[in-house]
C-alpha cells in the first residue's frame, strides 16, 4: 500500500494529539491531590476513594448500566423481530413503517426528547426510571432495525423455505436459521443500542425530568456544587474500560486478518 508522506503523517499525529490531550488531562487530574482541575499539585488516589463512597455517583453509574442493558436487550429483540417481519409486510406498509422508523434518526435528538417529554406529560405518566427505559428502547429500536433489516434482506429466501421444507416449524426456523443468519446484524444493532443508551444525555434528561433518576450524563449536567476530580476519576475508569475493549477489539481483528491471510 501507499506510503504516507511526511505531511500526512504530521497531520495525522497533530489531530490524534488534539483528540487525546483533553482525555489524557482528564485522567491525569484524577490523580491530583488537590481539588484543582488546572494545577497538578501531587499524586493521590483520594478521588477514587471518594468516587466509590459517593452514593449519588454510584447510583448514576448503576442507573446508566441498568438502563443500557435493559434497553439494549429489549430494543434488540423488538428491532430484530420487527426487521424480520418487515419483509413479510406489504410493500406500501413496509415503506411507511421505514419512513416512520427514520424519524428519530434524521431528527435532532432534542426533538425526539421533546416528543417523549410531551408524550409522558400528555398521558400523565410519572417520569422516572421506567420512562427513561421506554425512551431508550424507543430511540434504539430504529437503529437496530436499520442495522438488521439489510441483513434480513440479504439472506437467501430459499434458506427459510429449505428449513420449513425439512420440517422446521416457523419458530424453529426463526431460531435455527434466521437468527444465526442475521447474527452479525443483531450484534451490531445491539452494540449501537448499548452505546447510544450508555452515552445518552438529552433524551434521558427530558424523559426523566422531575424525578430523582439520573444517569451519568444527567448527573454531570445537573452537577453544580463541588465539581471535584471524582468526575475525572469516574471518567478515567470509563476510559480504562473502553481502552481495554478497544485493545481487545484491535487484537481480535488483527487475529482475524491473520487467519484470513493464511
Amino acid at each position, binding site marked *: 500500500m501507499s506510503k504516507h508522506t511526511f505531511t500526512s503523517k504530521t497531520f495525522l499525529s497533530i489531530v490524534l494529539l488534539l483528540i487525546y490531550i483533553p482525555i489524557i488531562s482528564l485522567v491525569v487530574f484524577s490523580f491530583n491531590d488537590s481539588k484543582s482541575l488546572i494545577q497538578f499539585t501531587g499524586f493521590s488516589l483520594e478521588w477514587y476513594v471518594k468516587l466509590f463512597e459517593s452514593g449519588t455517583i454510584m447510583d448514576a453509574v448503576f442507573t446508566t448500566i441498568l438502563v443500557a442493558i*435493559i434497553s439494549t436487550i429489549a430494543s434488540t429483540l423488538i428491532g430484530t423481530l420487527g426487521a424480520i417481519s418487515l419483509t413479510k409486510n406489504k410493500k406500501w406498509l413496509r415503506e411507511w413503517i421505514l419512513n416512520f422508523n427514520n424519524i428519530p434518526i434524521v431528527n435532532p435528538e432534542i426533538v425526539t426528547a421533546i416528543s417523549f417529554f410531551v408524550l409522558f406529560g400528555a398521558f400523565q405518566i410519572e417520569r422516572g426510571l421506567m420512562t427513561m427505559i421506554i425512551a431508550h428502547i424507543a430511540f434504539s429500536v430504529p437503529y437496530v432495525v436499520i442495522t438488521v433489516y439489510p441483513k434480513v434482506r440479504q439472506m437467501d429466501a430459499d434458506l427459510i423455505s429449505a428449513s420449513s421444507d425439512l420440517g422446521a416449524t416457523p419458530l424453529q426456523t426463526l431460531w435455527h436459521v434466521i437468527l444465526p443468519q442475521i447474527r452479525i446484524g443483531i450484534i451490531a444493532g445491539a452494540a449501537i443500542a448499548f452505546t447510544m443508551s450508555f452515552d445518552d444525555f438529552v433524551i434521558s434528561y427530558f424523559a426523566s425530568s422531575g424525578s*430523582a433518576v439520573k444517569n451519568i450524563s444527567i448527573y454531570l449536567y*445537573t452537577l*453544580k456544587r463541588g465539581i471535584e476530580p471524582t468526575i475525572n476519576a469516574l471518567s478515567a475508569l470509563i476510559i480504562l474500560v473502553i481502552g481495554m475493549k478497544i485493545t481487545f477489539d484491535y487484537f481480535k481483528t488483527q487475529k482475524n486478518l491473520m487467519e484470513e491471510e493464511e
Partner: protein
Amino acid sequence: MKKIVLLIVLSLTLSVLASCEASDSIKLFMPTEYIDESLLEAFEEEYGIQVELIVFDSNEIAIPQIEDQSNAYDLVIPSDYAIEELAVKGLLDTIDWDRIDMTKDLLDPAITQLWPDCGCDPADFNVLNYSVPYFFGNVGILYDSTRVTLTQLEALGWDALNDIDEDVMFYDSTRDMIMVALKALYAGEVDINNPTDAQLAAAEAWLADTTRVSNITYASDEIFDAMLVSGSTQYAMAVSYSGDAVYLMSENDDLGYYVPASGSNVWLDAFVIPKNAENKDAAYDFINFMTSFDNMLLNTEYVGYTAPRTDVISDVITNETYPESSYRMTVRTNDSIFRYNTELKVKMAELWARVRAQN
C-alpha cells in the same frame, strides 16, 4: 448461554420493580445542594422512612413539575412567591400548625415582619398558612476583595456588576436578576411585583447591556467551585444568595458579601405539602425532624443559609460559626419580597428568554 441471558433479564426486571415499589417513603422535592444529606440518613434511621430526594434548579422549573399530577411529591421546598402561586392554583394543603413542634413565636422577627401572621385580612395571602419556614435570606454581591473593593461597590451599587471591568457571574434565575436590574435602576421607586412596562424594558436593557465592560457568565451553583479557592477565583463579583455567600466566605477569606443599598429581595424558602402528596404523615414527621433545634442547627451550619428560628440564629452567632453581619437578616428600607403575579410571570419568562438568547 440462553439461561444466563434469561437470568440477567430476570434480575434486572426484578431490580427495576423493586426500585419502583416503596414501603414507606417520601418524595422530597427541593433546590439542589440545599440540605445536609447526612440528616436524611439520620431521619431514615429514626423514623424508618426512606427519603427520595429530587432536586430542582429554580422555582420556575419546580412549579410545572408540581403541577404535573403524575409526579406526586410529598414535600416541596419552594420560595415564598412560588408558594403563593401554588396555593392560588389550589395545589397545596394548608399547614396544621398544631402538628408542627416549632411554634410560630420561635420564628425570627424579620420573617414575621415581612410575612405577618396577623390574620387581619383573610383575603391577603399569608405564606405561613401553607408552609413551614426552612431557610431565608437575601440577594447580594459576593466579591473577591483582592479584585474589587467594598468602596467601589458602595459607590456603584448593583451597577458595579456592569461597570467594573472584571469577570462577573450573573445568577441564572429569572426573578432574581430582573429584581437586581430593577433595583439597580429604580431602587425604592419600583414595585418589583408590579413594574411598569417601561421599567421592565429598562431592566431588560440593563441585563442585556452590550456596552458594559465586564464579562458576564450565567451560572448558579457553579459559584461554589468558581469562588472557593483563594487566589484563583473565577469571578471578581457574583450575584449570590446570602447563604451561599456565607458558606463561601467561611472557606475563602478573600470574599466579602455586599447587599446594595438600593435594595434587594428578602426571600423565604419553606416546606409545603402538595394536595396530591401520598404520605402526608411522613411529611409532617420530616418537617418536625428538620425544624428541631438540633437538626436545624446542623443543617444551617452545613449549608450556610440563615435559619428561621431565633434560638438557632443566636447559637450560630454566639459560637461565631458564621459572622453576624452576613448571617443575620435585616430588612432595610428598599428591600422587598416577591409576590405572585400571573401576568408578570409570563412577561418575565419571555423577557428572560430574550436576555439569555442574546448572550
